[in-house]
């Protein structure tokens, strides 16, 4: 039983990582109805930037916010340069472009930082503490705390500031917002910047657990897809809940379902995606899709 609770706690920590990447996907989906296949690679690139800062002697707690600001700028730059020319293109075009972006960023990271896996220093101690008989790692607690702060910050930004309101308005009804003086295209860029920064959090938090290399996020993005789909791809709250559920599920599945083990955990992610899409395509918190003829 104790093992079970330990798995749940570490599952929540992993789930928090998935949740921030899933939230990044949701932000871009809400802004322009697109799943950004490059989200994981963007996070990986930001993590490499943080790594380069840290090995040059910058402390983790300074490198972390600096990287987020850089990722924010990078997200805006990508939207301005690559996405803006095709803002109104069909979904097919946009998906292919984000895939091209993912491939490019992956190759670029390999070119700039190399393909040798690097171990990313963890800011948290490796010790564990005893909470009601369950041993919880500081690493897990730290990840949960950082994710909670970031998610709360995004929530406050979206729901309680003018910028957040404009952002949501531009996504919800571009024409009306434009008539009311909102610069819709720049709001999209802002959405990309925000998503890029939130996604970077997941990369930086997951890097100490995995090893840092250009393919690091390839499996994480699948879990983030599963989380976003499970929560309903347009719901930020759903992304968080979905992330936690996926994190705990794959942890428990790896331990308790025979034959699953480490390498087939990814298949559990795929199974979640397919099951949700077939049984409940709107996810837990999504609105039912209405097709207008």
């Amino acid at each position, binding site marked *: 039983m104790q093992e079970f609770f330990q798995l749940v706690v570490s599952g929540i920590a992993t789930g928090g990582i998935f949740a921030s990447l899933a939230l990044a996907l949701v932000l871009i989906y809400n802004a322009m*109805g*697109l*799943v950004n*296949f490059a989200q994981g690679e963007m996070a990986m690139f930001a993590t490499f930037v943080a790594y380069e800062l840290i090995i040059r002697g910058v402390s983790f707690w300074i490198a972390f916010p600096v990287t987020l600001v850089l990722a924010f700028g990078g997200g805006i730059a990508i939207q301005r340069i*690559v996405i803006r*020319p*095709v803002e109104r*293109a069909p*979904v*097919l*075009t946009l*998906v*292919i*472009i984000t*895939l*091209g*972006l*993912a*491939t*490019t*960023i*992956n*190759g*670029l990271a*390999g*070119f700039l930082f*190399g*393909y040798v896996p690097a171990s990313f220093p963890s800011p948290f101690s490796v010790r564990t503490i005893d909470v009601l008989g369950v041993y919880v790692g500081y690493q897990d607690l730290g990840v949960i705390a950082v994710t909670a702060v970031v998610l709360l910050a995004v929530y406050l930004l979206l729901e309680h500031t003018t910028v957040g309101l404009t952002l949501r308005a531009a996504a919800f009804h571009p024409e009306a917002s434009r008539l009311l003086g909102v610069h819709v295209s720049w709001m999209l860029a802002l959405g990309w910047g925000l998503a890029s920064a939130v996604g970077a959090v997941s990369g930086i938090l997951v890097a100490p657990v995995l090893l840092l290399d250009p393919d690091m996020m*390839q*499996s994480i993005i*699948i879990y983030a*897809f*599963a989380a976003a*789909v499970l929560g309903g791809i347009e719901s930020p709250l759903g992304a968080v809940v979905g992330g936690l559920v996926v994190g705990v599920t794959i942890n428990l599945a790896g331990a308790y379902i025979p*034959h699953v083990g480490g*390498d*087939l955990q*990814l*298949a559990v*992610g*795929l199974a979640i*995606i*397919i099951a949700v*899409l*077939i049984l409940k*395509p709107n996810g837990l918190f999504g609105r039912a*899709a209405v097709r207008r*003829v």
Partner: protein
Amino acid sequence: MIERLRTAPPRYWLVGLVVLFFLGFPTVISSFLASEWSQALVLAIAIMGLNILVGYSGQLSLGHGAFIALGAYTSAIIVHHFKVDYLLTIPIAGILTGVVGFLFGVPALRLSALYLALATFALAVVTPSLIKRPTELTGGVQGILIAQPDPPQFASNVYSTITGSAMTSEQWIYYVTLFCALLLFWLAWNLLRHRPGRAMRAIRDSEVAAAASGVNIAGYKTLAFGISAFYAGVAGSLFGLGIGFVSPDAFPVGLSIQLLVGTVIGGLASIPGPLLGAIFAYFLPIYASQWAPNQTWLPAQITATVKNAGPAVSYGVILILVMIFAPNGIVGLVTRGYGALSRRLRGAGDRETGHVPPDPQTV
């Protein structure tokens, strides 16, 4: 007969020339190059299949590498366990993969384009670890070796009478692949200019309008999935034959992306597009990774990184540029250039006779 040949449209001549080129090509190049070109043709078959799905029926699959893997493993396992002639397993692999694709198309009906892309992408990422698991069947991480067949008597006789040299097994595999490619391209051409092709395009352009005109939406969408997977299965079987083994790492996500790159760069919804796209998508990474080692002025360490990163970066950048500036790919560019040229020529001719050139939209 002569009359028919004389009045045949120029593109039939073009097709004839291309076929002659591909028939004669391996007699003048090395066996190694012949095997590279047969892999390019394998890619062309798979891309033709993906083009039927994406270009004609408008369903986006990012996981066609999984179908290729299924085809390749079907052939390899049958040959390994039952010792049949490899060539006999090619249609079996195609049909089995086609049936699986057809069944996959049924749940896909419920998904929007975006969700379908997402689910198939996840499938492509998971494929290698799914293959590794049933070790007795698939050979696990090691995979299965495939013996490359020697050319049969009749083929080597014909070959040596024409060229005067013996046929290698790479050249035989090339001709087998070419035969399959010609057959499948001819099939696709016939399929797509008749009822099924029209139905698929109608669905792609407007599902509501197609349904109102009596097109069986669900039927044609799953049919497109089945046919597309059939092509991928045949391609997979030939892929295994060409490289001489199957292993989980031969089917990474990159393979699915390579297929998509080929489809898009060649030109969506066109018949010559997949061939051009495949040649491009196959040889671009090879040349991108060979470029750096040939540059002697670069330090060795940079050379190694560029060699690794070159294919990914050039793929990604070209994919983005093509989507932004030439969404119809190479074929789209050629058609546009040809249209502009013929309008200019026609315009010049008409100035002498005083005729107004007909509006291209109404012809």
